[in-house]
């Protein structure tokens, strides 16, 4: 498959992805890599039911997703992972990911505001730095057409640090 977007988004397959990214990128297959969902038939069916017309959805564990992403082919695919540490695991496992799109990570306890749609924990920032260390370009962008924020540049400049972020 040909990976056209690797996205971190805690909502996984939802409106912004299905109606925003999928049509503009011509995606034909969506891979949702999440251990909890993959272990639950009901959850897998729920996620698959959110598939846009003409798009296949697979829900895989992180361990299953890495080799699946390495399979050759030209089918345009979109990868969804819940948090940065999951994406880092895939990068470390050799998945052919050259760029990561950081989508929605909303507020929860222990996270601080980076963007309106991105709240990060120290663990998230550490994982993002780990992804960048593998020479993967990381950009925050919720929707096509919205401005992107170059995460790798901010990390390199020391501007993305948990202590520098406001609480909410």
């Amino acid at each position: 498959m040909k990976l056209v977007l690797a996205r971190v988004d805690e909502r996984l397959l939802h409106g912004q992805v299905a109606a925003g990214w999928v049509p503009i990128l011509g995606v034909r297959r969506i891979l949702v890599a999440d251990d909890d969902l993959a272990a639950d038939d009901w959850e897998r069916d729920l996620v698959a039911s959110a598939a846009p017309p003409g798009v296949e959805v697979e829900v895989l564990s992180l361990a299953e997703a890495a080799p699946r992403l390495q399979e050759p082919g030209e089918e345009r695919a979109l990868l969804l992972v819940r948090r940065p540490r999951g994406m880092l695991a895939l990068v470390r496992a050799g998945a052919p990911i050259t760029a990561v799109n950081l989508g929605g990570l909303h507020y929860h306890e222990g996270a601080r505001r980076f963007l309106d749609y991105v709240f990060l924990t120290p663990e998230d920032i550490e994982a993002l730095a780990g992804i960048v260390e593998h020479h993967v370009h990381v950009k925050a962008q919720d929707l096509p057409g919205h401005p992107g924020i170059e995460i790798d540049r901010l990390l390199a400049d020391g501007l993305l640090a948990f202590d520098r972020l406001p609480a909410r």
Partner: protein
Amino acid sequence: MTHPYPILLVAHRGLGEGLLTAAEAILGRRPEVDHVTNDGLSPETLAGEINRWLEAHPGPVLILTDLGFGSCCQTARRASRERTQVGILAGVNLPVLLAAVRSSVQEDLASFLRHLHARGQGSVEMYLGGEHL
């Protein structure tokens, strides 16, 4: 005396409030419908809001959501898992909302959901050059 199912509207930014405002303009009163948006909420937080509402309404209830493939609907479906008295209709529009507030808990929930579904589908009409297609 009959009364409608308790209704929770779960929708993207501004839609729930907009539908309720429009319904108020038509009905002359604000419908007794609770609403919550997913705007800025993590899936866990939204699930918590829906679960709290469900716990406050232990009988048969209706949840109206917007996009069937969106996080509002998916979160509502997760919250209603194994709760057979929770009916969900995705793709809410104004005709569906107006029909829903005229519901009666004396009606069978599954039958009422089918009625709402038909009402929603039937309310989408086409005109070309002023003529019905």
